[in-house]
Structure formats: structure tokens, C-alpha cells
């Protein structure tokens, strides 16, 4: 099953996710347990308006540390998805989405890249010909 806000409900607000977070140490505005708390309070709309959700490095330290085994990193992905679908994500996300919809890869390979590979003795990588219709359909054609 894909995650839903219910998967955060057992949060104890203990803050163990935040206390182990590399990002929080450098940027106190990123507070994982606060974001999870908002989700448990039914305030998803508030949480996805916070730019800080995009600062998660997806290191999974919070998920590993959680005494309730809440998948904190994954809950943040769920919030990012909601933000993206409501047009509240930063520009870089829409840019990445367009690239992946067109090429089915985040870093499409060019002829120049392939020439460099051949020179180094590596095989040519074929560009994915037409992207992926399924992917375009799920992510929405613009």
C-alpha cells in the first residue's frame, strides 16, 4: 500500500527524528517531528505549504530511529507529492518532472556523452526513444 496520513498517527512527538537529523542541525527551520505532528492533526494543507519539506535529504535516519517505526522520510515524500500536485512545489521539481516525462531519465544521455563513453571504452547507452506513455499519463501531460 502507498502511504497515507494515517501512517503517521502513532507518532509520540518524542522528537527522536529531529534530534538525529543532519539538516535540522544546520537549519533549525526543518523540524521533522513538527511536520509529522501537523499530519497527525489533519493539517496536511499547512504542512505542504512549508518550504522546509523540500530540505529533507532523504537520508532515512529519522525512519531508522523512530520508536514507533513511522516511515518519516516516506511521509515527507507523501507531503511533497501533495504539494507538487497542488502546484505548490518549487520550480526545480516541475523542471525535473518535465525531463523525466520526456526522457524517462533525470539525466538524458546526449551524443556527446556517448562519444565520451566510447572514447573511454564504455558501451553506448541508447536514449529511451519515446519516453513512457504510462508515466506521462500518471504525471499528467501539460
Amino acid at each position, binding site marked *: *500500500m*502507498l*502511504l497515507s496520513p494515517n501512517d503517521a498517527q502513532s507518532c509520540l512527538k518524542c522528537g527522536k527524528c529531529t534530534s538525529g537529523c*543532519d*539538516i535540522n542541525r*544546520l*537549519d533549525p527551520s526543518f523540524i521533522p517531528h513538527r511536520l509529522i505532528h501537523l499530519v497527525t492533526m489533519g493539517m496536511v494543507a499547512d504542512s505542504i505549504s512549508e*518550504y522546509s519539506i*523540500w*530540505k*529533507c*535529504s*532523504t*537520508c*532515512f*535516519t529519522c*525512519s*531508522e530511529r523512530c520508536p514507533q517505526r513511522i*516511515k518519516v*522520510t516516506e511521509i515527507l*515524500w*507523501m507531503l*511533497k*507529492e501533495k504539494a*507538487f*500536485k497542488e502546484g505548490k*512545489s*518549487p520550480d*526545480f*521539481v516541475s523542471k*525535473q*518532472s518535465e525531463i*523525466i516525462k520526456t526522457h*524517462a*531519465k*533525470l*539525466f538524458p*544521455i546526449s551524443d556527446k*556523452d556517448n562519444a*565520451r*563513453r566510447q572514447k*573511454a*571504452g*564504455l*558501451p553506448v*547507452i*541508447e536514449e*529511451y526513444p519515446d519516453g*513512457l*506513455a*504510462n*508515466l506521462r499519463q*500518471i*504525471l499528467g501531460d501539460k
Partner: protein
Amino acid sequence: MDYALYLGCAIPIKALKYELSARNIAARFGINLIDLKCFTCCGFPVKSMDNLAALYLSARNLVIAESQGLDIVGLCSGCVATLSEAIIMLEDINLRKEINGLLKKEGIGQYKGILKVRHLAKILSKDTILEQISNNISFDLTNKCLAIHYGCHYLKPSEAHGKLEDVNRPTSISKIVKAIGAKEIDYDLKSQCCGLTMMSADESIAYQLAGSKLKDIAEKGADALIVACPSCCVAFENNQKIACKAVDTTLSMPVLYYTQLMGLAIGMSDKELGFEFNRVAFKW
């Protein structure tokens, strides 16, 4: 042993030295890495856009290998973690049905759930291979102090990686360093993230994460940093100057992939190991 080689998006463009050294060292130890067509993005960046689309991307890559009867070997820790997580998610019957519906539409076969995904470092750190390495040392590295950056997705989520090693006390790459005769140094920020995945959201923090780690290992006397993921390598090597500036220091810290280190120890050539692509020069 035959495996499907999953390169992902970053390796073929940003990590030629890793790909070269990985292919050559694998061949040396009888690990046959097979290139398959039509692999796409692993799904990792798509999780921020649509989790079903991300799982579909992972699943179609799994099916491409599975339909050839092959397990997957990955070089990028992010790809390996994402594909491994997908295997666990697809244990859910309803979700598997939904994904298989999408795969049917694409016409590439159905996901059965019989394949495994492994990081190459986990295979190369097996005792049988390390014994052969130790018995065939031709380049002395005993005076080298090496810091290892395992990286987040190499170890986590631990469930996806089959809990093969303790995320707080990993040993696989340490065993490689020991086998080639070098000394592994311990350092305070060992488990700290390289920061690259959040670079687009906040550059300043990303550089501080990489820079503080480089500074830490330099102070502990490291001769080089050993990595196992192309993203980590970009954070510590390509971005080294600016990362160091973010923590008010200047360093020239060589960054090597574990595959380059292993090859160097057993006398493989610079060309085989892609050393021409290392950005921080070192003379050992």
C-alpha cells in the same frame, strides 16, 4: 555469476571512473555484468511527484531483469535502495496488481517478485573475493589512511537492504580497506549525509554537509575519501572547492570509488580504473 547491470541516470554521464573500474574489477573476479536495454530512471526523483509513478518506474526496471532470469547489480546507492524498496512495496497484492496493470499496458511482462537487487560493493566485499585480493596485492597501500563515506542509501532503509549490516556500524567497505592493507580512520561525522539530494532545495546547507565532513576527515589525517555512490562523489569531489569554502577551509582531498581502490591494490592499470577522470589529483 551473471547479473543485470543497472546503471541508472547518473553513472553513465557523471561517474565514468566508477563504471569503468566496476566493470573491470567485476570481470577480474568472474562477476559477469550484463547490459540490458530499456532501463529507465529507478523512480527515486519521481517520489516527490507521484509515488505510484515512482513505483511503476522501479517495477518496470525490475521486470526487465527478472524476465531474463537475472538479479540486478547496481552501482548507485540511491538506485539500489529505491529498487529494493520497490520489491518490498510490491509484496502488497493489490499494489502489485495495479502496477502489473500498468506494465501490461506497456507490454513488457509482469512482475513476479523472484529477483534480488544488490549493490556491487556488497558482492565485492564477500570473504572469498577479499581473500583473493589480499593474496594478490601488487601495490603497497599500507601507509595510507582512508576515510570511508558509506552514504545514506547504501545502508538505509535497512529493511530494503535486508538488514545485511548494522546501519550504525557498517563493515562491508571497511573489510575492503582492510583487505587491501590500508588503515581505515574513524571520524565524528562518519554517518553524516553528503547533502547532494537536497542541493536543489538549499545549496548552502548541502555544501556545509559535504564541507564539514571533508574538514573532519582531513583533521583526522585521511589521505583520501572512499565512496560507493555517484551522488556522494559529486558532493565531495566535483563540489569540493565550494563545499570547503562553505566551512572556511581549503582542501585537496582525493576521492576514490571502492572499485578503484581494489583495482589499484591488485595492479590494474590507470586506464582500466578510469583515474584520468579523478578531479583531485594524487600521487601514491
